[in-house]
């Protein structure tokens, strides 16, 4: 099990290295990156926003449960803002995108593999990593932070709804508490993580798809595995980053 995990991480790193190399090799076909970015960004926007909004509401309600007893509800906006920007929005958005886009990538590339379309690319002297992986990788690495910025704002809006309409804080007090407590590093540490999460989703999704070895059943299995592995690696990477930010850089 440990050996398999290490060898899997090795394969992903190899694919990552090859992808990184091909990013800088011309020709650059921006329309392919744009097509993939559309799939990751605008098409995932609604579901990512919806989840962020509800998480904002849930966070505020859970905080209210404790804080009201201490008459400390004034601190809820700060806690909601910090936990959403540093942790919840980046991780939940990444998990949603892994389930929605990562699985789709595996299914698409897996089908291309079993129907010999990937072989056809090689036969036409086209590198499959350059043609298939690079646009998906760049789309995720660029669009996931963008989605997370929206999720940050919408999650804080969710908190606003509860704080203002249920706990009767004034809107101006809510926003001033949010702005006062948030610093650039809170937002930036969250966004830094999403770049790595995006890379994980793209590499796992593409690796699983390009390594499907049998028909429809293989594609199904690879798709399930892609989601499971992405989820695990995202949470592990999040834990690693949070630990590093806290213990090493003290941020």
């Amino acid at each position: 099990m440990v050996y398999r995990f290490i060898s899997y991480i090795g394969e992903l790193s190899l694919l990552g290295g090859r992808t990184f190399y091909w990013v800088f090799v011309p020709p650059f076909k921006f329309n392919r990156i744009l097509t993939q970015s559309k799939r990751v960004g605008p098409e995932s926007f609604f579901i990512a926003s919806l989840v962020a909004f509800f998480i904002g509401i849930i966070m505020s309600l859970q905080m209210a449960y404790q804080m009201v007893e201490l008459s400390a509800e004034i601190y809820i906006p700060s806690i909601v803002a910090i936990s959403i920007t540093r942790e919840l929005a980046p991780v939940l958005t990444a998990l949603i995108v892994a389930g929605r886009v990562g699985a789709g990538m595996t299914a698409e590339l897996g089908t291309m593999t079993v129907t010999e379309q990937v072989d056809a690319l090689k036969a036409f002297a086209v590198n499959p990593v350059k043609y298939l992986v690079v646009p998906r990788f760049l789309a995720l690495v660029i669009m996931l932070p963008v989605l997370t910025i929206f999720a940050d704002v919408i999650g804080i809006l969710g908190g606003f709804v509860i704080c203002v309409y249920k706990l009767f804080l004034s809107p101006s007090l809510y926003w001033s508490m949010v702005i006062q407590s948030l610093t650039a590093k809170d937002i930036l540490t969250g966004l830094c993580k999403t770049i790595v999460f995006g890379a994980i989703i793209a590499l796992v999704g593409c690796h699983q798809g390009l390594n499907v070895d049998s028909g429809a059943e293989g594609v199904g299995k690879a798709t399930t595995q892609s989601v499971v592995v992405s989820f695990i690696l995202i949470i592990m990477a999040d834990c690693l980053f949070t630990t590093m930010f806290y213990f090493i850089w003290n941020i």
Partner: protein
Amino acid sequence: MIEIVNLNKSFGENVVLKDVNLTIEKGQTKVIIGRSGVGKSVLLKSIIGILIPDSGSIKIDGVEVTDLPEKEYNKIRMKIGMVFQGGALFDSMNVAENVSFVLNEFMKLDKRAVNKKIEESLALVGLQGVEDMMPSELSGGMKKRVSLARVLCMGPEVIFYDEPTTGVDPITADAINSLIVELRNKLDVTSIVVTHDMNSAYKVADKIAMIYSGQVIAEGTPQEIQQATHPVVRQFINGDAKGPITDGEKLVFGHVT
């Protein structure tokens, strides 16, 4: 000319090609026959570099390709077109985009020139007005013909056909066979056709080679193969269920009640 010497390829314990030797002369159509799973497609994919052989030599126009850097190999690949078994058309693109794939990827032609080339290539395979159709809307035979048009669009010197008549009706199969012969006569392309359809083999081949147990066991003109005395070749070309090929297999025939 393509020269294959002592080519070996295994997948784990499964030895697929064992010291295969084969020569395909320029302008010749060589048909490779053999049962499903004997390694015919593996041979084609090894020549074009999709699979890496374990050992042996493959020379294309005198250039040893087995240890060639990817960039150099790609120059050779640009001279070779491969028609895949299921067509392998890119299903996110329409017919025109599929046919012009190589032009759009590697050549900077204006739209009019590309459209003209698409039209010409489709006309060569007997298709018209299908440019805007998606691969999912095409029949099996049409997919194979579009796949061939995609290859013709790049102006290849060598064409590999992986089971070009499998899964199509006899009339379409005959049309595809005629097309292969016509392309050889008109464009003087070197071809390797992998098939287990003997009608097709006799019609298109200059030479036929049979692969059995990972090796080439017989090679000759269609007439020579038809008159071969090797029991394995005889069983295969006659399509007999019983014989040396199936001796070790526990197949039950003729027990339907």
